[in-house]
């Protein structure tokens, strides 16, 4: 560096031990003070750097520069010669001071990752940092654990080496797959790509791969191989990844695996990844708003991801499936009754119900209750959802709405429509009113059938609703009340006289709904439609309870005790080899870190390393690092 006045200076930054060796002896006092400060900041988990400088003489510098030039163009032992030169000039520096940068992990990151892992969600980290940094982050977040059987490092420089390392990893994880592998490579149909089957693996493995190797891994010829090995590992950390590669990784997973991908990131370099994934989540924060603007969801802290997935995502899935099932049921039932009536009306497509009822059925009578259920339904409360991540599994396995459940819904509809037609038919066809007058006419039958239908589907909705808020109650009973109100209005004298052609059903409600016969028929129909459903659901809960049933049972049992704290899980920090400081220097720091020299002043404030609860204030050995780029991968 040349100052404006013409003076040459050399500024140097680096870790304290290295710099200390190069200092001029005159800096001793300053060195001690600086060391003290460094200890304090280091114990708080800050990244520290020491700065020093030296004034250079012109002549010496010229000479050094010439030698440097020679050394850099030397044909052999270039590295050593350059090192020598650097060592020579970086001597007798004057200490300037130290810097400490805070680059913390957000609160709750390890717990979030642990909870999501319990929910069968695979998580990968894609970061632009160096390998050591990324690995340290992995240990800090509990993604890489000491208990893991093995952690593979893929850092080869050529395609063949990468392939070899991947194969070695796979050989260790699951030796038998090596022989069978050629089969998958060849079979690549033209348009559709085959789905990579899931490999079951014993033990937990981690894999670290750097960007250079990743570039080879993502090539067409090797991507399947790469993906297969990588998916066998519980945790994957990719370091030194470019933004484009992040998107490529996501696309690779999307293409070959039947999984939904979610990408979460906070910087502009994550935008491509966020856009490539099925769901993109942006974290708004210090790195600007690009990630937020290109994402589907955005929030401010990583730990909200847990709530997004386990609470809101799960509820949304349940609500959607219930809604769909119920909607198909009510419309199929509604329609199939006409099919049965066809046998009795000469297949002339005469509708069983009043035309106004048909218009208003989906619009008014059954719309609000369904809406209420789809908006407010919760099978378990949010605290319990966070408590039991296993509840997330049904969504991953597509359990609640699939071909099977559609067929079940159809069968249920057929049964209901049979009841809803033949019971009123049997009750009505040969009978009359209690004053002898006609009751078996078309209009009375239509009114009876439509009332039975509405009550039956409303009660079915009541059975489906798991969470009765006041809004749900209002919608449900209000809709039934509205039905009767509208029907009585439409069938009144006034409406008939004003709109004669539109409301021909005049008098029907008054003349048939005062018959006990009619109400007994409605009661029987309702009972026969509803009780089988109750019996089926009850027996299923008894014989084959799903995780949902179990949790709800637990909830109902502990109704008087409040649900336990959501953050009950603790991170087990058993690692004694890792210090958790994320330095990005290549060599020589292992000794420093494991020596107690760095930590000598603050032994008293350390908590035992085995159990560190992130929530306790004042615990010192916490590692913080901003979680930059994470790809979260949900299986199936």
């Amino acid at each position, binding site marked *: 560096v040349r100052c404006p006045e013409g003076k040459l200076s050399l500024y140097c930054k680096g870790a304290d031990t290295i710099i200390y060796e190069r200092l001029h002896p005159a800096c001793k006092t300053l060195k001690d003070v600086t060391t003290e400060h460094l200890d304090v900041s280091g114990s708080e988990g800050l990244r520290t750097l020491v700065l020093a400088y030296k004034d250079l003489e012109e002549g010496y510098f010229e000479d050094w520069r010439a030698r440097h030039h020679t050394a850099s163009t030397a044909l052999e032992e270039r590295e050593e010669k350059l090192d020598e030169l650097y060592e020579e000039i970086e001597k007798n520096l004057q200490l300037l001071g130290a810097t400490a940068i805070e680059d913390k992990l957000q609160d709750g990151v390890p717990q979030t990752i642990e909870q999501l892992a319990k929910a069968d969600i695979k998580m990968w980290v894609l970061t632009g940092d160096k390998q050591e940094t990324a690995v340290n982050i992995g240990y800090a977040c509990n993604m890489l654990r000491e208990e893991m059987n093995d952690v593979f490092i893929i850092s080869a420089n050529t395609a063949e080496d990468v392939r070899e390392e991947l194969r070695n990893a796979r050989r260790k994880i699951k030796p038998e797959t090596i022989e069978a592998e050629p089969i998958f490579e060849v079979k690549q149909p033209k348009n559709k790509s085959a789905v990579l089957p899931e490999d079951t693996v014993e033990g937990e493995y981690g894999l670290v791969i750097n960007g250079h190797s990743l570039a080879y891994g993502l090539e067409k010829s090797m991507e399947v191989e790469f993906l297969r090995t990588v998916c066998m590992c519980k945790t994957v950390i990719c370091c030194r990844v470019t933004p484009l590669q992040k998107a490529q990784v996501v696309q690779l997973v999307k293409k070959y695996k039947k999984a939904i991908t979610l990408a979460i990131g906070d910087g502009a370099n994550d935008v491509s990844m966020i856009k490539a994934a099925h769901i993109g989540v942006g974290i708004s924060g210090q790195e600007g708003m690009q990630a937020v603007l290109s994402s589907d969801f955005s929030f401010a802290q990583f730990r909200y991801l847990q709530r997004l997935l386990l609470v809101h995502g799960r509820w949304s899935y349940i609500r959607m499936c219930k809604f769909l099932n119920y909607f198909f049921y009510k419309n199929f039932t509604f329609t199939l009754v006409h099919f049965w009536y066809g046998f009795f009306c000469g297949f002339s497509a005469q509708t069983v119900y009043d035309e106004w009822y048909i218009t208003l059925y989906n619009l008014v009578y059954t719309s609000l209750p369904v809406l209420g259920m789809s908006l407010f339904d919760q099978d378990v409360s949010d605290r319990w959802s966070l408590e039991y991540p296993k509840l997330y599994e049904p969504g991953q396995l597509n359990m609640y709405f699939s071909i099977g459940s559609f067929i079940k819904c159809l069968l249920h509809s057929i049964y209901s429509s049979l009841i809803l037609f033949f019971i009123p038919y049997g009750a009505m066809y040969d009978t009359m009113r209690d004053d002898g007058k006609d009751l078996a006419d078309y209009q009375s039958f239509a009114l009876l059938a439509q009332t039975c239908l509405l009550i039956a589907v409303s009660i079915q909705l009541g059975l489906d609703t798991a969470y009765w808020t006041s809004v749900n109650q209002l919608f449900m009973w209000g809709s039934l009340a509205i039905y009767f109100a509208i029907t009585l209005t439409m069938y009144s004298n006034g409406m*008939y006289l004003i709109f004669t052609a539109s409301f021909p059903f005049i008098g029907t409600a008054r003349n048939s709904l005062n018959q006990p016969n009619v109400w007994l028929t409605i009661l029987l129909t309702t009972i*026969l439609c509803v009780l089988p459903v109750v019996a089926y659901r009850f027996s299923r809960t008894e014989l084959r309870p799903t995780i949902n049933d179990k949790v709800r049972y637990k909830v109902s049992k502990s109704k008087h005790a409040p649900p336990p704290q959501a953050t009950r899980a603790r991170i087990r920090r058993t690692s004694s080899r890792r210090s958790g400081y994320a330095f990005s220097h290549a060599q020589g720091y292992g000794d420093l870190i494991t020596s107690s020299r760095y930590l000598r002043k603050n032994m008293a404030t350390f908590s035992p390393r085995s159990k560190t609860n992130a929530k306790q204030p004042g615990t010192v050995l916490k590692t913080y690092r901003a979680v930059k780029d994470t790809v979260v991968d949900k299986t199936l």
Partner: protein
Amino acid sequence: MSNRKDPPGSQPFMKRPDNTAFKQQKLPAWSPTLKAETVLPFFFLSGVACILIGVLICITAAGVQEIKVDYTEESDCTDCYSLRLDRANSIIDCACTVSFSLSEAFKGDVFMYYGLANFHQNQRHYMVSRDNAQLVGRQYNLKNPSITCIPFDKYKNGTPIAPCGAIANSIFNDTLQLFYHPDKNTETPVPLLKTDISWFTDRTVKFQNPSPKANLTAAFAGTARPFYWWKPVYQLSEEENNNGFMNEDLIVWMRQAAFPSFKKLYRRLNRTQEFNDGLPAGNYSVKISYNYPVGKFKGRKSVILSTVSWLGGQSNFLGVAYCASGAIILIVAIILTVVHLKFKKKSLGLEEE
């Protein structure tokens, strides 16, 4: 603690949703579960209730007396039946008599119905073939029947038909007269009432004669009778308030039946003289003026006499259905109880996650 920084220049937490119970999805709610303590008693109760109701209905239905005589081809009506197969014979009158006997007296109000089978009054084109505005007595619609009545709306020369439509056109026109034979030689006509056999709302609102109501001939001037009728609508009855559109037989017929086999109220017993308590037991006969041709579509005609109860007619279906459902529900309840008790250990294992 948090790394959140609001975008520069904005109010802090501007986009934050309100911390109300509604928006945070924390509304107080009732969250029912299907527990054995609620489901099993409910099943048992409903089963028992259904059986009780079923028994009650069966007893009530058993107390209703009904007799049905199919006279389509009964005794001397066979000739009339064959006669009516040919449309050209419609000008020829044909009468026949059908006899039956009541083993028990029909106590209380007795109603006489005519029943038709295989007659689809619920066929869609048939159903819409009427003009309700005309039947309410509107002048405009009287002279201009709605297009839904086509082809039963006008004659070829343009005269409108009142009442228009296929339903009115096909009105049941057999006349049935009931006679009681206390002994072999005497024949007492049973007094029957023609009025108050239709719904009150039909009579008072839905069917009204066009004005002037006093002089129906003038009111219906310019219209003609439907194709298959012998008399125009204002000559349906001599009684003043049973004539024109307000003829109760017409009203009863116009109330379309829901199913192909139905019965419609024809007459009510006039409980006078010896029929004060209903119909005594004994021999009866029905003199039929056989006009209605049902042979072509293989229909059946019948005459039905019935008493009523608070439940209506003598239909056993509801009682049997209730009893059967009650029995099935009880069986299911027992099965569920067995399942519950047997798998009680397993259900306690619900504690496991």
